[in-house]
């Protein structure tokens, strides 16, 4: 008596699988392990400190769901579910690419390191904060010089400059 058979009754009985002895046991073991994996990935999605953690955990959730689909289709005896697995793989890859682009768009982590573009280097130099040490300001000046060397005006920067010049 396998696990799915006890849950769903006679609907999931595959007549080819009923003659086998070893494979249903291993399918049950793999299903239990995959559910544990899903729980641990969900734990990382909830608790993960950075957004990259959540992104990779959600992608691994997709991979684990793909493996569960494979187990279920082996148990059912049809290969129709494989297209679902393929769709989940494609969507997971597209989601990974989009999330990586989204993560790269952010500029400042609140308590950690700072990635500078030109405007923020200017803002940081004009800052009169005793927390900002002299070393930090020196590094900000270096970063500003380096950014000014290969500076390409973005649309946001142009808009800001126009506002600044046409205000009065």
């Amino acid at each position: 008596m396998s696990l799915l058979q006890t849950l769903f009754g006679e609907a999931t009985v595959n007549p080819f699988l009923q003659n086998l002895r070893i494979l249903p046991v291993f399918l049950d073991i793999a299903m239990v392990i995959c559910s544990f994996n899903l729980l641990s990935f969900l734990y990382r999605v909830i608790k993960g400190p950075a957004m990259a953690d959540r992104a990779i955990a959600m992608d691994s959730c997709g991979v684990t769901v793909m493996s569960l689909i494979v187990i279920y289709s082996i148990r059912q005896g049809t290969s129709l579910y494989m297209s679902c697995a393929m769709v989940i793989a494609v969507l997971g890859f597209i989601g990974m690419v989009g999330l990586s682009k989204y993560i790269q768009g952010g500029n400042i982590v609140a308590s950690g390191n700072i990635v500078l573009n030109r405007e923020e280097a200017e803002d940081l130099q004009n800052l009169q904060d005793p927390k900002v040490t002299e070393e930090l300001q020196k590094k900000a000046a270096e970063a500003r010089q380096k950014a000014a060397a290969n500076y390409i005006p973005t649309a946001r920067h142009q808009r800001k400059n126009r506002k600044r010049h046409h205000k009065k």
Partner: protein
Amino acid sequence: MALFIEILISLLVFFGAIFLLGGAVGILRFPDVYCRMHALGKGTTMGIICFMLAAFIYFCWSGVGVCIMSLLALVFISVSAPIGSHMIAKAAYHYGIPLWQNSLRDDLKPDCEFISEDKADF
């Protein structure tokens, strides 16, 4: 022969689950984003390769027919999962997530302009 194929499919399914379990333990226990990504990239890729091979052999053996879709998913996952995890790692580094405190070397550091106030332990 039938017993041999059955044992082969069972071992493929079992090792796929074990690889995924390795990824799960890695994502639970490792201290850093990059270490977790290192565990997950290998674990999920190898696990899904084992599962898809098991499905392909099973469907060929049980008379359903040659399932091209599983081989297609295998190839696609084994190409796209390293690319995706590499992109996420690069994006996380550019975002400014610090490395683990005890990590030894940082090869990306001269390429990027970072100002690190403190080494926060994520």
